């Protein structure tokens, strides 16, 4: 399948980062008008739009590097499910508010050290995107952390639901901080870090938040992988159907 990779390692990596951000943006967008408070609707929409903005930069840069004329829209709207290389975590559904915030905490704690390292990438274009991403992700982490503390240290109900979300999503966390051959090659040329380089910072961030929230790490030892090679959970297909149906139904439609 041609579309799973671009013609360079860096392009393929940019699409991977872009997919993480695009899919999470779509998930957060789904929740608009569903939050328990108007203020939360606005905050979640803001967070989603931050992720969408980053995805647009990454896809555009990937298209430029590829030199094949693919635009950000081509990457977002015209690839099939098996071509998406986002981590499985970000496609997990908005089961409840606790799931949304735990998913966000897990992802934010990974994005902050990743963007910090990418700010020093040999690709100055990627370093520029990373510098913008780092500012946004730092705030996202502050917000998701403070929510997890409030939910964990809140009522018995909120603590129970938040622990359930941690346990339910824990199996998708190792994928975030596991590197593969692509990252090894990029790391050796100074273009990107290995995801495993951020593993210890990721875990110490999570542990600190969970301790303050009086919650525990997931106890399930099972970890699942596949997102980086296009093997997804059953939740990505319907998300893409909603995301892409307009361009699929009316190809090239603009307004």
């Amino acid at each position, binding site marked *: 399948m041609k579309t799973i990779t671009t013609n360079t390692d860096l392009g393929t990596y940019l699409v991977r980062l872009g997919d993480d951000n695009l899919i999470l943006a779509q998930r957060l967008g789904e929740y608009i008008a569903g939050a328990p*408070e*108007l*203020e*939360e609707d*606005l*905050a979640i929409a*803001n967070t989603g739009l931050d992720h969408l903005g980053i995805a647009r930069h990454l896809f555009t840069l990937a298209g430029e590097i590829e030199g094949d004329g693919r635009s950000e829209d081509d990457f977002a709207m015209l690839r099939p499910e098996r071509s998406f290389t986002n981590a499985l975590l970000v496609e997990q559904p908005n089961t409840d508010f606790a799931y949304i915030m735990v998913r966000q905490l897990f992802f934010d704690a990974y994005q902050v050290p990743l963007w910090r390292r990418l700010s020093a990438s040999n690709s100055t274009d990627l370093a520029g995107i990373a510098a913008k991403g780092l500012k946004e992700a730092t705030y996202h982490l*502050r*917000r998701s952390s*403070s929510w997890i503390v*409030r939910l964990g240290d809140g009522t018995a109900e909120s603590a129970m639901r938040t622990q359930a979300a941690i346990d339910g999503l824990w199996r998708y966390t190792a994928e975030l901080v596991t590197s593969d051959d692509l990252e090894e090659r990029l790391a050796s040329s100074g273009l990107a870090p290995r995801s495993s380089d951020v593993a210890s910072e990721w875990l110490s961030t999570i542990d600190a938040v969970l301790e303050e929230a009086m919650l525990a790490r997931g106890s399930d030892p099972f970890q699942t992988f596949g997102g980086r090679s296009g093997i997804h959970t059953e939740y990505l297909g319907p998300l893409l159907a909603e995301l892409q149906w307009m361009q699929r139904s009316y190809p090239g439609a603009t307004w």
Partner: protein
Amino acid sequence: MSYDVPVAPGEEPVEIPSEGSKSHGWPLWEVFVRAKRGLNHTHVGSIHAPDAETAIQNARDGYTRRAEGVSVWVVRSSEIHASDDAASMFEPFEDKPYRHPTFYEIPDEVGQL
């Protein structure tokens, strides 16, 4: 604290509590934004939030997302005490124009004050 609801002729006035009501669990906070350094914080509106930290975050997302500010203050709405609208409160000042400093000449040498 309560809001005054307009009362139509023949209607009984209704008092709606602004906080502590069962229909809305989060208290109201007033939001003040400083547009840039050197300017005062200005009241821009209000938001709901369960505590001060969350109130600041909600104010940030609600009122500064288009780069409107560099600093935010929040204060519980119930902590604000407002003047009443009695005629004796402000109307006495309406006929005292001499309290404006416009009744004497400023020498040219003074320049811009």
